[in-house]
């Protein structure tokens, strides 16, 4: 009996349908072209001196420091929050989980406004902070960290909660039968088991904090050396010195690519 002739492209599913391939290619070009544009228009000859300009390094330094501090804060508060959501059945857990994801979908500018209303000098908590400790967060470097952490923390919490849910609970049971208290189980078994998830979450969180614009400019303002991070500097430079904006953008692009490369195995190449 003769076997039916099959296309050599894919013996299982047959010919690739162009109705899918065409939009796919358009999508690819749409995503890649802006990067190409950035590279093409970069003033390569004057790149060195432009990078050395005082404002650039200052903004980059501020961005790296605030994004790292925000990520650290997210780890300290976000990992326990993720653990609580994943492991402890408490009333209103679904509501709490929904609240955690709100900053993910909230326009960052709105987040900035909300932060001002709470932590501003006349805000609900800010008023009290000002009276008791004599300090206020808005328009300070600490304010930048707060704004970035607010926007970036959901990324960490969701990633770590997912890892915790996927982890095999029986390892924790085994640890308990060996005499480990809940804190020891968390420290010596749970954390190492979900370490890849925490790393991935922290990198995503850091990248989001690094690119934060809306909440930062609303809550912390745009003071060079104090609250002017890279994205703010790019936006400002675009008005006065477009070439400077391109150089700053290139720096951010390089940082993003490095982040992407570090996640390559876990996210991009995963089936």
């Amino acid at each position, binding site marked *: 009996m003769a076997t039916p002739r099959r296309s050599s492209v894919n013996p299982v599913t047959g010919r690739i349908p162009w109705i899918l391939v065409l939009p796919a290619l358009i999508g690819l070009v749409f995503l890649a072209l802006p990067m190409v544009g950035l590279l093409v228009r970069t003033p390569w000859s004057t790149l060195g001196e432009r990078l050395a300009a005082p404002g650039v390094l200052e903004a980059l330094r501020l961005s790296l420091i605030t994004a790292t501090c925000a990520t650290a804060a997210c780890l300290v508060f976000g990992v326990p929050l993720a653990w609580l959501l994943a492991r402890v059945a408490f009333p209103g857990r679904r509501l709490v989980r929904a609240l955690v994801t709100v900053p993910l979908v909230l326009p960052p500018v709105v987040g900035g406004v909300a932060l001002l209303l709470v932590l501003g000098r006349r805000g609900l908590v800010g008023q009290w902070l000002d009276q008791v400790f004599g300090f206020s967060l808005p328009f300070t470097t600490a304010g930048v960290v707060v704004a970035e952490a607010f926007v970036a923390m959901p990324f960490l919490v969701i990633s770590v909660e997912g890892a915790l849910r996927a982890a095999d609970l029986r390892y924790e049971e085994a640890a308990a039968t060996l*005499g480990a208290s809940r804190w020891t189980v968390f420290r010596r078994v749970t954390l190492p088991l979900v370490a890849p998830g925490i790393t991935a979450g922290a990198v995503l969180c850091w990248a989001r904090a690094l690119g934060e614009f809306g909440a930062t400019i609303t809550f912390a303002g745009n003071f060079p050396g104090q609250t002017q991070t890279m994205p703010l500097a790019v936006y400002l430079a675009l008005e006065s010195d477009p070439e400077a904006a391109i150089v700053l953008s290139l720096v951010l692009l390089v940082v993003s690519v490095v982040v992407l490369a570090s996640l390559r195995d876990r996210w991009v190449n995963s089936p």
Partner: protein
Amino acid sequence: MTLQAHLVVERPRFLLDIELKVDQGEVVALLGPNGAGKTTALRALAGLTPLSRGRIDLDGESLHDKGPERRPIGMVFQDYLLFPHLSALDNVAFGPRCQGLGKEQARRTAMGWLAQMGLAEYAHAKPRSLSGGQAQRVALARALAVNPRLLLLDEPLSALDAHTRVEIRAQLRHRLAGFAGTCVLVTHDPLEAMVLADRLVVIEGGGIVQQGSPAEVAGNPRTDYVARLVGLNLYQGSADGQAVTLDPSGIVLRVTEHHRGPVFVAFPPSAVALYRERPEGTPRNLWQGRISHIERHGDQVRVSLDGPVRVGADVTPVAVAELGLTPGQQVWVSVKATETHAYPA
């Protein structure tokens, strides 16, 4: 150290309710089919599954109101659950560390256990690079390293391949014999239970159906499950001297023992003979049955028969060919009275 426990775990559509008493140095095997509740019982002893009712006393000290981390237990899990991020050494040292030993001291203790298991050279290996037999021994070392008074083993050999299992079973038997505390193990493998345990507790449907020494249980099965495990035909009936009327078929079996009232009758499949024609001069223990299926069983052939009495018969492959046995066929079945065993129900 004596364990006395009354374990009640209520679940939707499942109730575990068993009473256990295990003496110091005794190894008890909970034996039963899947879903019988034997692992639930073990988890309840460990404190991993909360009791609905009942109590657990070890030497008069009550354990049931303590969390697993405060019970003097060591547990070996079915697939060992060695911590994948720790070396074999640190897996074994985990328990001693939790008991307050310093890092170095805990590692020395762990090294001692690994050496006893013949695994000193694998101390720094990660669990994924260990063979099944090695992982099993590391898991046992980890459970013993906390100096438990109650050792719990959940299907300790089921994750091993057949060849390794025989070897590890012998080692495990040796270790358990040397263990001073109380030991409860769970298995669905009768051979494993009989080799490892001093006493079998058979659990079916959340309750104990039979218990006793391996020889007692094997020789006097009280449920179909146990009879099948030990490869016996088992019937209930009522005895009048050496004649037993089987329920519900009404067929009368001649046996060697004298009894009166409800009894079990057990006999091995090798005691059953099959004939195409009604045999001459053996009027007793004879009836007609229909072959339901035929399968190979070691170097014998196991013939299963329906009819008034369901029975399994072991015959040689030659006999199958000579008699021309096929499923669906009607044959005469006879059982030698001298190979039957009747005991009170």
